[in-house]
């Protein structure tokens, strides 16, 4: 095994070990409620949405960009999909597939629009996606007249609820399967394809990548499109869960939490470095913490403070580890 892979597995191993130790401690404090299979599954279901958003954001952040619009895009995609589902005469699987495709198209289009000024005019993505955040939110309110759009059909419910697969005496919620699929596909995309390699090259040194023949504009556009599509998937899962598309779905801390998961997962905001598996662990850590604090009955305002501190700690710890490795 080479040095890079060793350092990678060392990190994963350390993360797991740390998680296990903390989990055991919390479990003891919560009188065994923490490590019950149904609780673990609950955490996985809860982090699904954050994790999928984080995956899209991971691609963007590795190119040294940022996408602030994903929260609003969840709302917009959800509302548009709800309106579409109610207007079309489709049923069953056809309805599910068509609705998802419409959502993905909206998310992809918004991502494309995010990318155009970044690619053509070299504007900072912070600004273009901030503008998109406002525009998408406004559009979702306009399209829904400010109220949640309830689904007429029940056909989407199996997506958001229930479990096809049972393990350890408990059902794996269907949204978790979506998360696993998104993680698997995006991880292969990022680590095993040309596109993925170009994403890293672009984030590491854009000019060197361009001179090596990388079509920088295309790659950049695609990462924002992927981010928009991940937001659309989350919008779709929320739509199925609530049986309605609301303009308020993504207006809370969703976007910031997704960025937190990415950063806690070891992806550098300076670009050029990061991983999908890291983002999963980041989302998992945040989710477990949330859950544990709830179990332990910690005041919810204090929970925010703790969460913020953990994000800072994770980033500081990663930096210290890097410095240690550099000296060794």
């Amino acid at each position, binding site marked *: 095994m080479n040095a890079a892979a060793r350092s990678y597995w060392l990190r994963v191993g350390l993360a797991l070990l740390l998680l296990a130790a903390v989990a055991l401690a919390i479990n003891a404090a919560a009188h065994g409620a923490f490590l019950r299979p149904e609780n673990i599954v609950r955490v996985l279901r809860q982090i699904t949405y954050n994790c999928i958003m984080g995956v899209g954001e991971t691609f963007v952040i590795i190119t040294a960009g940022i996408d602030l619009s994903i929260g609003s895009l969840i709302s917009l995609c959800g509302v548009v999909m709800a309106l579409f589902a109610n207007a079309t005469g489709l049923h069953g699987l056809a309805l599910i597939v068509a609705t998802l495709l419409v959502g993905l198209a909206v998310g992809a289009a918004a991502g494309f629009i995010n990318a155009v000024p970044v690619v053509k005019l070299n504007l900072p993505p912070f600004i273009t996606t901030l503008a998109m955040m406002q525009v998408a939110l406004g559009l979702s309110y306009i399209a829904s007249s400010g109220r949640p759009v309830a689904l007429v059909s029940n056909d989407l419910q199996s997506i958001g609820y229930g479990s096809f697969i049972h393990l350890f005496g408990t059902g794996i919620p269907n949204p978790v399967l979506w998360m696993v699929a998104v993680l698997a596909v995006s991880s292969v995309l990022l680590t095993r394809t040309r596109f993925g390699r170009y994403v890293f090259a672009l984030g590491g040194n854009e000019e060197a990548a*361009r001179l090596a*023949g990388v079509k920088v504009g295309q790659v950049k556009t695609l990462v924002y499109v992927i981010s928009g599509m991940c937001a659309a998937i989350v919008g779709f899962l929320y739509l199925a869960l609530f049986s309605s598309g609301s303009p308020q779905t993504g207006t809370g801390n969703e976007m910031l939490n997704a960025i937190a998961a990415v950063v806690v997962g070891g992806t550098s905001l300076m670009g050029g470095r990061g991983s999908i598996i890291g983002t999963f662990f980041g989302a998992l850590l945040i989710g477990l913490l949330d859950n544990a604090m709830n179990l332990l009955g910690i005041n919810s305002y204090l929970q925010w403070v703790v969460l913020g501190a953990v994000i800072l700690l994770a980033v500081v710890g990663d930096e210290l580890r890097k410095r240690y490795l550099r000296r060794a």
Partner: protein
Amino acid sequence: MRDIGKSFPGVRALDGVTLDLQAGEVHALVGENGAGKSTLMKILAGAQPADSGEIRIDGSAVTIDSPRKAEALGIGMIYQEFNLVPALTPVQNLVLGSEPMRGPFLDEDAARRRAERTFTELGVTMPLTSEVSRLPVAQQQMIEIAKVLSRSARIIVMDEPTAALTEREIDRLFAAIAALKARGAGIFYISHRMEELPRIADRVTVLRDGRAIETRSVKDFPPDDIVRAMVGRRLDSHFPDLPPVPQDARVMLDVRDLQRPPAVNGVSFSVRAGEIVGLAGLVGAGRTEIVRAIAGADVPNSGEIFIAGERVRERSPSDGIAAGIAFITEDRKGQGLVLGMSVRENVTLAHLAQFQNREMLIDRAREHSATQKYVDELRIRTPGTEQLVRNLSGGNQQKVVLAKWLLGDARVFLFDEPTRGIDVGAKAEIYNLMVRLTENGAAIVMVSSELPEVLGMSHRILVVRGGRIVREFDRAQATPDAVISAAAGAAA
């Protein structure tokens, strides 16, 4: 400096080096890439900690744990890569970190006065109010030197200060160094250019593999001995023999009336298969801009480019690559490499499509074996193909850039300053590689500021001035004087 030791992951960079520096002397450090020169000086400047050893100044031991501490001790460093803030003016850069203040506010007038005084002392004229990023490299370097000078440093380190300079600018630099010596400053002078050592140095120390091999007064240290000490073996003639271009060789690159004002103003020339054409000229003459336009790095306003008789229209570098052009840039860290990626990932970056399997996934095993082949062939000193390029020395980084372009089947190679900042041994390897490329039918355009290199490594020499080709020499006719005067516009 006594017994300085330093290791990096997989590399023992310094192995107990002991050096001394007298007041008013220029002490030259020479050695191959990776010999440890730059690392040693970074330790002196507080940019990197030493693992072992001690440093004494005026007889008393000091700890230098930060660049600020080094500065306080009177140590000034001029790095190979400049440490200027591109968006600030020369004045702002000069006073950065020690701005003159009037109460809580910046004293701009005092800053400007200090800058003017320093630049006058150095004998250079400097546009004080334009952004540093708009200035040519040579002027940026003068700002670096002025910065150190204005902080009254007593120990000054210069890492390859002449690499980016033209002959006339080098004269000015040497005058400035003489002035520093006269003021009692000691100077560590790192250089790859043998010919300048007798002109500037008092003593020479040769480093090899992290050890100080030999220190002698420059008068008793003939260049041949220095080179032998550096490589541990005697080098034959500096430049390889260029095989003649066959009479019937086809035109591989044909450039017609290329325009990209203000730097490129109507350039036409052609290069045949197996031919090396050198572009000579002063800094700012437009040589780099010409090759950038040919490579598609900048889109020309007008003009035509033919590769092997076929017109190519380039909107981006990827079009150039598809047409068979390889462009080895001048600035390897800024434009040639992704430092945070591995050797393997850098070598395959421009030709990743070759390594895709049927499922459109990248075959890492094939990437590895292709990279390993070039690591062996070019003798790239690295612990493995997974080492980050950031951790390699300058010459080895340059070889990684070359490997990247050898991997494809380019027919036209554009070399922009191919040997800048690399040592004698690696230079010879790169020259031999260029000869091999021509033997395989490639056409080469080489931009170089080192006149001996242009004269020694080109079949034909084109002199560029003001974005135009003003003179053409055959190898046989070209003399240093003739080329320089054409470049400077002195004589017809």
